[in-house]
């Protein structure tokens, strides 16, 4: 199982997650299927959808999914960090497209 290895909350509420990948059976020989995998989510991001993005990529790579139970750690942190005020402040500071 791919696990949540590190959760970092930046001052602006950005959530950075480092996952520890586990290769699926038959894909162990590929070096990239082991080790770390990172991503970052801005305040207000859909955290459930974020897991889906990872798992969709992992499926293509040959890496085990991040389970919903494991991902709950990230959701719990996001629930605390991504308050309405934090989300509003973050969006206010974003440059235009």
């Amino acid at each position, binding site marked *: 199982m791919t696990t949540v290895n590190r959760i970092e909350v930046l001052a*602006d509420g950005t959530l950075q997650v480092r996952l520890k990948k586990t290769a699926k059976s038959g894909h162990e020989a590929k070096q990239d299927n082991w080790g770390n995998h990172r991503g970052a989510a801005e305040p207000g991001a859909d955290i459930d959808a974020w897991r889906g993005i990872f798992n969709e990529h992992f499926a293509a790579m040959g890496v085990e999914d991040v389970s919903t139970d494991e991902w709950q750690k990230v959701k719990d942190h996001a629930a605390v960090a991504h308050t309405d005020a934090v989300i509003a402040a973050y969006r206010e500071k974003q440059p235009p497209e």
Partner: protein
Amino acid sequence: MTSTYTSNQGIEKPATGDQSGTWGGTVNTNMDIIDRAISGVGALTLTGSTTTLTTTDGTLTDGMYRVLVLGDGGDLGSDNTLTISPNDQDKAYLVYNNLTANRNAIFSQGTGANATVANGATAWIYADGAGSGAAVRIAMLSTEISDQDGDTKIQVEEGGDDDDTIRFDTGGSERMTIASGGTVDVVGDLTAGTLNADGDTSAGDAAAFGYTSVLGAIITGQGSTSDVTLVNDADATVLSIPTGTTNVTIVGDLTVNGVIFDDETLDIYDEGTWSPILRPYSVVFDSITYDSLRYGSYVIIGHLCHFEWAMRTDAITVGSGSGGPNIAGLPVAPLAQSNFYRAFKVYSLSGFAGEFPAQFSIASSNLLGALGYSADTTSGWTATVIADLDTGADKNWCTCVGTYETA
């Protein structure tokens, strides 16, 4: 008239005018008693758990010896109590307890104190001849040097014959031992001016400080969590070596030649993969299917993130997607810089429907970067648009490499 006898050795004193013509026998017996009392060594073979050491007036008896060597014909099965009789005679014996099976010899005379001569010991003892309450005490013991009440002492043979261990007791408790092999075991704190080890430690040592001429000072330990742990004056761990490893864990900061390495500085290296996402800036595509060439990797050193991404798509359903195409999913957030755009060269290989992106630009701390191009050397940045993407298979193939400062 009848004879009387001396108080302690029972030497006969004939009455005036008695034993005319026969006193020679009495004198000879008395001489033998005196001889025995001065330097006689009596080898007594004890049996059972009790012995009576009797002095009979005017008769050469065991209680008159100066030296008692206690032996047996085999294990007595218990300690042996030797009762000095009668209880009103003063006695002084040099006793050697040579019993087998580590049996003690306990000397008693009345209801007062007894004197225990441990197995293997030679002791000077004396009985006070105080009648029914008489006591026997040890004046000097070959296996022990003790204080007045006997609870503080240095002793040998406590563990039995040829124990080969020196034991130090204070206040009734054993505090230190020196075993036959030279191992010193101390109960309680050990304070020394300087502790100079001169021997090597070994793998089985629980906690040892040693020295070799090659390695110098050596610390060896065995613990369930750590083999060696250094703690500060608050008993908090400063440094540890996890059990069975060659790793070192430093809890606080490390200062090297004036430079401080804290936990953040030491955690300077991280590498792995990330998931590059092709998406419009405002509203995502209804769906997107990536090609197997999709790839994202990073190496983080300190506050620098070096990234690589490659993108190729097999299908895009634009749907309600709106905004310029971006690559999202950066491994870590860039450092926020107002009105700052990090631009990286994009190598677009093939498969675009319109303009080929040539730049990847991350604005401030955005977690995504826009794909764009410069039409010519007199034009500024131009963002690509959704229509530049091709929705077919093996399309939108581009790659990028760059480095940015992390938040």
